[in-house]
């Protein structure tokens, strides 16, 4: 018994010494990123659990309300990422250069206000515009007017053009700029053809498969199904299995309704 106590005392004394003798290696950028991403996952699953509990509580509250009880407070529409966002931004400062980019992209993804998104996009464009890892930011360019504001999107686009070296950003920028015209103008119009030609060069230079696919699909869709184009034939079967064709209706105005009863 006595011996055990002595051993325990020695161990308690020696343990911190051991820790001092062998300091834990400092967290590198990759580990920090992984840890923060795990934290993000936990925040989301906690929030989902709260949402489920709130739904159950709401059912109960509805019964109580019938008897004159108080309604329960509403749950926010998304988890609160404020603190985590701060940690991502801190990490981006701690691990500068290229290592900062993944942290900033995570912070961009969980930003909840226009100001928060603007802050991160500015950091990325001002300090990391040469990064080859900006695909996530590039893909967001067509939505930047809705993510922040139209005025900010315009400023950011100018910044990208002025920098002029990141072909992925320039490619997605060309897509963002041409999209409105490609969607609204008839495929036979000069405006459409000009917008298509202008964007095609920058998009090809980006060598980004997703961008190329999105652009090709949009152009193909508009050239086949845009306003003023003749609808391709549909030759199929009705709900009873009887064959019929869309061209049976030539000479009539057709209201073609893609519908389902789900």
């Amino acid at each position, binding site marked *: 018994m006595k011996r055990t106590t002595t051993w325990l005392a020695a161990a308690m004394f020696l343990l911190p010494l051991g820790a001092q003798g062998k300091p834990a290696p400092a967290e590198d950028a990759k580990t920090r990123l992984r840890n923060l991403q795990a934290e993000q996952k936990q925040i989301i699953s906690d929030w989902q659990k709260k949402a489920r509990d709130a739904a159950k509580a709401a059912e109960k509250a509805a019964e109580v309300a019938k008897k004159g009880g108080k309604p329960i407070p509403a749950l926010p529409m998304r988890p609160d990422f404020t603190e985590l966002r701060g940690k991502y931004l801190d990490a981006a400062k701690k691990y500068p250069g290229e290592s900062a980019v993944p942290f900033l992209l995570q912070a961009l993804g969980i930003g909840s206000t226009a100001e928060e998104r603007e802050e991160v996009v500015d950091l990325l464009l001002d300090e990391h515009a040469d990064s080859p890892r900006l695909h996530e930011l590039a893909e967001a360019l067509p939505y930047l007017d809705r993510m922040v504001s139209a005025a900010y999107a315009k400023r950011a686009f100018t910044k990208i053009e002025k920098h002029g070296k990141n072909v992925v950003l320039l490619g997605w920028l060309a897509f963002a700029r041409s999209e409105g015209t490609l969607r609204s103008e008839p495929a036979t119009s000069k405006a459409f053809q000009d917008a298509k030609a202008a964007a095609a060069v920058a998009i090809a230079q980006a060598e980004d498969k997703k961008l190329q696919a999105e652009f090709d699909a949009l152009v193909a869709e508009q050239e086949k199904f845009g306003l003023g184009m003749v609808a391709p034939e549909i030759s199929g079967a009705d709900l009873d299995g009887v064959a019929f064709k869309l061209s049976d209706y030539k000479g009539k105005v057709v209201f073609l309704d893609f*519908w389902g009863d789900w």
Partner: protein
Amino acid sequence: MEELKDKPFAMVGVNSDATPEAARQAVAANSLNWRSFQNKPEGQVRAISEDWYIRGWPTIVVLDTELKIRYRGHDGAEATKVVKGLLEPEK
């Protein structure tokens, strides 16, 4: 659309229900009186909606008498307006 029954106008559906049986039930329950294609009949590799780049339901496409596309979108009221414009006698 009742007021259009004497005009050169047709409603045509492309139905995406899992089975024609489910679609027929929906037609009966909602008294739908237009004909529908099966979006992807058994044995067909590609659905009509895929060929037509349809990404949201319902989608409405309005065609003029030459089967040219005059509206494509999700707004039933807007589509109806386009149809009525096309059916108005030219002045």
